């Protein structure tokens, strides 16, 4: 379990007023004389706490739906058993085979090209781009991915950024098979990290580290440099900053929206009947997640490339981010939630508690003054 420390003040700048979304302050704003009852009555605060314990919108974003047991009668159960046999015995080995073939083809082309064409940069980049798209297609095939793309394919132009909602790391693979994006990702350990440092470097990926406070400025600078380059792959950013369960969207980080360029939203929606593609990174490793996908029937999803948006005159980056989040949520049928995805890893800033304390204290002091008059 990762250490939960309170956030640095930088993280608060990403958030507009959460208080607008939370249930309204229960402390009465009155100017009447203060009685003992008013001081002793903590029921509003207790009610809020109990409400949070029983159900809260933040945890709902990361709930993976348990598969409903639909196979408990005499004919469905054997069918389900047959299904399991097919999935684990036939489909899974076939998929592993496809994936292995894909990797062999990829590595045997990528490694020579990477080293031999060191001097011919444009050619090398073109071929590597194509190869990355190829290996991603193999990945998608290995889960029997049925992906419907809607909307015009993104073009390689400078000064544009793509943003999408985030459900799992496979979002990136699904989008990558259509167009080789450069993406900004959290550096992961293990074999994923190895892939990240070798292959993804070639498409121009940028790394960030959630736990480092100064990281934001460094990353912002790298982002700006990347979009200025004409030859760089289009940049893909997941502004939620963490994987969400594809029913909700959490607040978008404003980093992608203050780069001064066009933002092209992409909405991704998975069909949960076939498999729940949400990667609950606290519950399972990426390997387990991939294995689960490979032993399911199919991964079915819709990808919508939406109309590019620009910062409107007089609009702040935060408002811009909210507007784009709205567009994506509406298109993919997701509910919006006013929480920062990083609250998965960090505690909320004490500022929110302080606001409540301040309003109560001020009302007490005011009523005391009334008494004095």
């Amino acid at each position, binding site marked *: 379990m990762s250490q939960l420390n309170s956030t640095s003040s930088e993280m608060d700048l990403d958030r507009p007023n959460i208080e607008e979304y939370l249930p309204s302050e229960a402390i009465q704003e009155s100017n009447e004389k203060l009685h*003992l009852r008013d001081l002793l009555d903590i029921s509003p605060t207790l009610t809020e706490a109990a409400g949070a314990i029983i159900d809260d919108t*933040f945890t709902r974003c990361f709930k993976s739906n*348990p598969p409903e047991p639909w196979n408990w009668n005499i004919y469905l159960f054997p069918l389900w058993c047959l299904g399991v046999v097919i999935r684990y015995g036939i489909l899974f080995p076939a998929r592993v085979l496809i994936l292995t073939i894909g990797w062999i083809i990829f590595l045997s082309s990528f490694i020579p090209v990477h080293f031999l064409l060191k001097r011919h940069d444009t050619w090398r980049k073109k071929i590597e781009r194509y190869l990355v798209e190829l290996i991603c297609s193999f990945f998608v095939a290995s889960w029997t991915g049925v992906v419907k793309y809607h909307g015009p394919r993104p073009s390689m132009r400078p000064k544009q950024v793509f943003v999408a909602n985030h459900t799992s790391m496979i979002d990136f693979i699904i989008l990558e098979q259509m167009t080789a994006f450069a993406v900004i990702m959290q550096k992961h350990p293990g074999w994923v990290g190895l892939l990240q440092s070798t292959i993804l470097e070639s498409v121009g990926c940028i790394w960030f580290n959630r736990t480092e406070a100064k990281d934001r400025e460094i990353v912002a600078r790298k982002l700006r440099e990347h979009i200025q380059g004409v030859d760089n792959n289009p940049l893909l950013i997941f502004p939620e900053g963490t994987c969400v369960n594809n029913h909700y969207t959490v607040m978008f980080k404003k980093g992608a929206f203050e780069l001064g360029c066009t933002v092209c939203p992409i909405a991704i929606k998975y069909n949960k009947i076939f498999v729940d593609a949400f990667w609950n990174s606290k519950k399972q490793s990426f390997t387990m997640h991939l294995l689960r996908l490979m032993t399911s029937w199919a991964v079915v999803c819709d990808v919508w490339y939406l109309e590019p948006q620009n910062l409107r005159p007089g609009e702040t980056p935060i408002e811009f981010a909210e507007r784009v989040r709205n567009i994506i949520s509406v298109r993919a049928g997701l509910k919006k939630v006013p929480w920062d995805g990083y609250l998965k890893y960090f505690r909320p800033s004490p500022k929110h508690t302080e606001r409540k304390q301040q309003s109560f204290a001020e009302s007490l002091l005011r009523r005391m003054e009334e008494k004095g008059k």
Partner: protein
Amino acid sequence: MFSISYLGPDSRAFTRWNNKLFRIFGRDRETMGSAPSMLTQYDIEDVQEYSYNLFSQQEIVSLYERFCQLDRNAKGFISADEFLSVPEFAVNPLSQRLLKMVDGLNFKDFVAFLSAFSSKASIQQKIELIFKVYDLDNKGKVTFNDILEVLRDLTGSFMTEKQRETVLSQVLEEAGYTRTSFLLLDDIIKILGCPGLKMEVEVPVD
């Protein structure tokens, strides 16, 4: 899985067999969230009785799902850290005080704690909970310091200690108490009892 157990002992045996197969393919862990044990009809009735019949069976099932969701590694209780991972709870001024009451509760006690927030709970039961929040160390009475502590949580650094003491002394005096007097449950009931107290939370039932 819950619907099967309602049908009686035979289907429970079938479910156990089903469950075993699920477990082989690792699905059981997914189905149940973190807790491996299932809630049977007997368990539900037991918990219901323990919490003064203030929750319906559906609500207890929902609460169990919630309990399993918060209790990440199926320990059988929710740790303080796991409570604080709910942002809405962590920003509550009384969260630390409440944590002392709810930290490490098993499911039965968890439901009993929340039963005070049911719409069917009596004013007496609600006030008893408020009394317990003040009287954390179970002295049986609420002292000036107890109220001061809660006031400190609620106002933070926006009032000085002197201001808090002054306010509290004044309202206590006005109500006929002194700084050294202590309030018993009956006193709190008298003070908060009328007009009525509104302290209800609805348990979402899918």
